[in-house]
């Protein structure tokens, strides 16, 4: 398992890096505008039909997928390293696949969700 993790590390790191970018920049703004500012009336709320049209376009689906899936990989990778940094390195071969499987399952659900929009 350690060798496999080593082999796929470039992919994991790439997903993690993109997850940081999307998670810290875009997702924060997304939640701020749609989750807080719009319900409070600070910005004009977007109608359901308009939001659905935007989300169901090809670019909209890709953006939604990136917004949901990439932060999951970032979270899994971060949790793995927090686990290692706090002395759990011996069990990395068990913990890391579990965390990445969770991220993969979440990504699969996200793919199904954006396809069915």
């Amino acid at each position, binding site marked *: 398992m350690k060798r496999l993790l*080593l082999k796929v*590390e*470039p992919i994991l*790191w*790439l997903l993690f890096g993109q997850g940081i970018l999307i998670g810290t920049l875009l997702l924060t703004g997304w939640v701020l505008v749609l989750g807080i500012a719009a319900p409070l009336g600070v910005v004009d709320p977007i109608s359901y039909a308009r939001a659905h049209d935007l989300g169901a376009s090809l670019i909209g689906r890709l953006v939604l997928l990136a917004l949901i899936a990439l932060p999951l990989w970032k979270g899994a990778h*971060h949790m793995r390293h*927090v686990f*290692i*940094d706090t002395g759990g390195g011996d069990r990395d071969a068990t913990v890391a696949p579990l965390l990445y499987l969770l991220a993969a399952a979440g990504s699969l659900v996200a793919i199904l969700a954006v396809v069915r929009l």
Partner: protein
Amino acid sequence: MSDVQKKTFVVTRFDPDRDQVPKTQSYEVPVEPDWKVLDALNFIKDHIDPTLSHRWSCRMAVCGSCGMLVNGEPKLTCKVALSSYGDTVEVAPLPNFPVIRDLVVELDGFMEKFEHVKPWIIRAKERAVEDGPMRQSPEELEEFKHFSMCINCMLCYAACPVVANEPEFLGPAAIALGHRYSLDSRDEGAGERNRIFRGEGTVFACSYANECSEVCPKNVDPAAAVNQAKLKAVIDWAAGLVLPRRAEE
């Protein structure tokens, strides 16, 4: 000299022939206003306790020998002023290294990591002497110059949480040095180093705590080198998938 200030130095002592575990010993030292931490350690050695062992050489932050833990932080003891500390100063050996005696740590494992990253100019074909020197523009030098200012003081290894938990990890200084050569316009060994960076001791083990750059006394910014090395290793890996021959080079 009538109003001499005194500071208490709590120094970690360890004699492998007698001690099972390290212990601390306190020394009262009359300090001068312009002294560095190293001056006080040398005073202890010369005037109070000649059995104290510590490593130092140049006294001008160039040789990288006198790195120690001062009040819990990795510091070059010849560079940090005593005036920035209170009446009690704790001095201990650098963590993440085996201790030989008192404040002196073992360097062997650290030096081996440097060899792993091939810190020399690699050429596919050796250049003949009659071809003259390899020219380099100031812009090309600027690409890697700051990464070449490392003095191997090991403070970054003492500060790194990944080095503490993963002995295989190449570590900040070694990766920065390897990356320095990969950025050198005269070098053709980036592919070899990328494979090393992706292998055992992988650069991806770095969790970007950034502590290495925080403690670096020469502003090398090894954290930046590690993360640039990650990106280069990923691009090289992806290019190897598309162009299989590239991976075999």
